[in-house]
């Protein structure tokens, strides 16, 4: 393929640039447009079927519905599930604005389950509160959002470029001023000048190698390769809790959820090979994952999602959900193996590692306005560190980011774009095309991700983590030699650089936090004890501008704004009053 010259490029402009048109990105765009900004969504796939919601979602995991739960319950639950290390102000926003978001989605046409009294039929999966709200027609959610984006009133303000993939955020004077990327079909080079940039590029779902060995057989949509994490890092933003990995209990080999959240209300639950329950709460947490791993590693393994005891009609209902929404090929998979839920329980295993704050707590550091530490740069969704934020949190933070970014962009200066950064990004994108005979991406990526499994998979130890850091440094050489022949292959090669960056962050952060915490997510076999005296704090990492090295800073846990019954803060910091007024959404006033 022809490599374009650096100045032979498409130059785009907007007030608010949204990188990634998934859950958080679409909502960010809708809100920013509502506030009068001209918005550009750059999406590497196609907005209609991209991201985690590519085929919809079977339920909301974390809706705080008035009358069913309180924001205080939710914030306390999430605080405990994260061993106390949360900025409660961020979680509180998800708790207080989630219901308004449910109603907004309803106004767009998304349907949520209601009981016979027309009340939201929330269910209890978490340790104390009830926040799980099924979506019987959840497969339509992305369709509804896309329709809204294409509606006449929005269309004028929101431009979408599908199949265009930013690789770097551009900064000037430490402020985000745009992005640089390329068209993954034509190879065209693209720059954007923007008043503000919202990163909503999803999780790092292609970090560990699935046990199947298939590069794209991941839990997360494999388009989400950690692009946003790498872009934020190179733009100078802080990331937090990267050592708090994402690990999920999934259908073995298929690697998708057979969620206890779906099955629980119908009477399904997880059991070990002896048929006994081994967790008292099916809510996904590091503690639960540690228990899952203990069963799997013992003579009591494997583990199953048990459904076979349920009546035929109930199983039919469960199939009706699991085989049509979210991951509809679950049915195809089971049919191929001759598994019928009526006769055989579903064999489960634990996933490879990933980074994700939607499920865990690893992400770009943001405050309750979705602002990162780089002015003009926002992060929302799975890649933003708001623990266990799931789908509603992605929508809420997309909304918050859209509003704040639109107002920031109004007055933001629009400097000339930095040509040196554009040239560096050009090299990152096109170098593989100048060496088409170099090792192909599938081999390089396989090797990189196998090292991730070898050295980072918990339980972690200093020796293995150190070998991991060495392996990821060595992979820089392989990556520099990678070859590509088409724009599509260039996309995959750029993704390998993101995966490598994330692997290095994951290894170094895990080495730095010299204790064990969050159950399996950060279990250090060589340091098995939780060290509250030294580590009751956030561990933030960033690129040190003076030497381009990764640096680590401890950030204290902000005073709680919600009391957490039964939890004593080890640092003794007293609680602060909960925010009122502007910070509380309509529904809660």
């Amino acid at each position: 393929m022809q490599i374009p010259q650096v100045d032979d490029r498409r130059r785009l402009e907007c007030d608010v640039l949204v990188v990634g048109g998934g859950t958080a990105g679409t909502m960010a765009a809708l809100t920013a447009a509502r506030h009068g900004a001209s918005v550009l969504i750059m999406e590497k796939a196609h907005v209609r079927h991209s991201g985690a919601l590519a085929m919809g979602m079977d339920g909301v995991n974390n809706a705080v519905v008035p009358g069913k739960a309180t924001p205080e319950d939710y914030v306390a639950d999430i605080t405990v599930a994260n061993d106390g290390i949360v900025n409660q102000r961020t979680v509180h926003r998800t708790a207080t604005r989630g219901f308004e978001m449910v109603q907004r989605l309803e106004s767009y046409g998304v349907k949520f389950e209601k009981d016979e009294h027309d009340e939201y039929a929330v269910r209890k999966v978490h340790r104390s509160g009830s926040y799980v709200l099924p979506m019987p027609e959840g497969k339509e959610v992305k369709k509804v959002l896309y329709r809204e984006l294409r509606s006449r009133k929005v269309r004028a303000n929101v431009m979408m470029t599908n199949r265009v993939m930013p690789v770097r955020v551009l900064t000037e004077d430490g402020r985000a001023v745009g992005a640089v990327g390329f068209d993954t079909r034509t190879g065209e080079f693209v720059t954007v000048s923007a008043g503000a940039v919202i990163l909503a590029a999803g999780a790092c779902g292609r970090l560990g190698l699935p046990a199947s060995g298939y590069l794209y057989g991941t839990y997360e949509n494999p388009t989400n390769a950690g692009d946003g994490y790498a872009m934020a890092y190179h733009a100078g933003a802080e990331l937090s809790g990267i050592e708090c990995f994402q690990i999920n209990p999934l259908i073995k080999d298929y690697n998708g959820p057979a969620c206890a959240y779906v099955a629980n209300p119908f009477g399904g639950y997880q059991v070990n090979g002896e048929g006994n329950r081994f967790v008292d709460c099916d809510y996904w947490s590091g503690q639960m994952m540690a228990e899952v791993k203990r069963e799997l590693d013992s003579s009591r393994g494997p583990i199953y999602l048990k459904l076979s005891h349920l009546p035929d009609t109930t199983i039919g209902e469960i199939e009706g959900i699991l085989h049509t929404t979210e991951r509809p090929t679950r049915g195809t998979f089971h049919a191929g193996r001759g598994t019928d839920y009526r006769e055989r329980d579903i064999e489960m295993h634990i996933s490879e590692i990933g980074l994700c704050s939607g499920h865990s707590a690893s992400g770009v550091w943001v405050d309750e306005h979705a602002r990162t530490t780089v002015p003009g740069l926002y992060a929302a969704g799975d890649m933003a560190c708001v623990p266990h934020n799931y789908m509603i949190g992605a929508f809420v933070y997309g909304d918050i980011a859209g509003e704040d970014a639109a107002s920031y962009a109004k007055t933001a200066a629009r400097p000339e774009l930095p040509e040196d950064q554009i040239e560096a990004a050009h090299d990152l994108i096109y170098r593989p095309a100048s060496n088409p005979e170099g090792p192909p991406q599938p081999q390089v990526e396989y090797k990189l991700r196998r090292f991730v499994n070898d050295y980072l998979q918990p339980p972690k130890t200093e020796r293995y983590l150190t070998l991991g850091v060495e392996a990821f440094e060595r992979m820089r050489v392989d990556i520099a030699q990678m070859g590509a022949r088409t724009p599509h292959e260039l996309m995959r090669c750029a993704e390998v650089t993101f995966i490598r960056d994330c692997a290095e962050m994951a290894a170094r952060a895990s080495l730095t936090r010299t204790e064990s915490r969050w159950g399996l997510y950060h279990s250090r076999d060589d340091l098995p004890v939780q060290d509250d005296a030294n580590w009751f704090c956030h561990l933030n990492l960033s690129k040190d501008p003076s030497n381009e090295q990764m640096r680590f800073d401890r950030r204290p846990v902000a005073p709680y704004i919600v009391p957490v019954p039964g939890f004593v803060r080890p640092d003794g910091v007293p609680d602060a009053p909960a925010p009122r007024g502007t910070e509380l959404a309509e529904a809660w006033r």
Partner: protein
Amino acid sequence: MAQANSRADVPVTVDEEKCIDGCTLCVDMCPLDSLAIHPETGKAYMHVDECWYCGPCAARCPVDAVTVNIPYLLR
């Protein structure tokens, strides 16, 4: 670099009899951009073994020409 072309079983298949000339819906929708229109046949096909077995390709095909199988390594 010495190279070899090795075969791979790809998960998504298209019934060429059914596939409509000029349509590109499945190609447009695939999040991984793994489908393409074959320059000779004019029909959709999987051009790379990259698949999340997610299903938009099959769901959006107006004539039910697309079958999503589970990738061989997982099957």
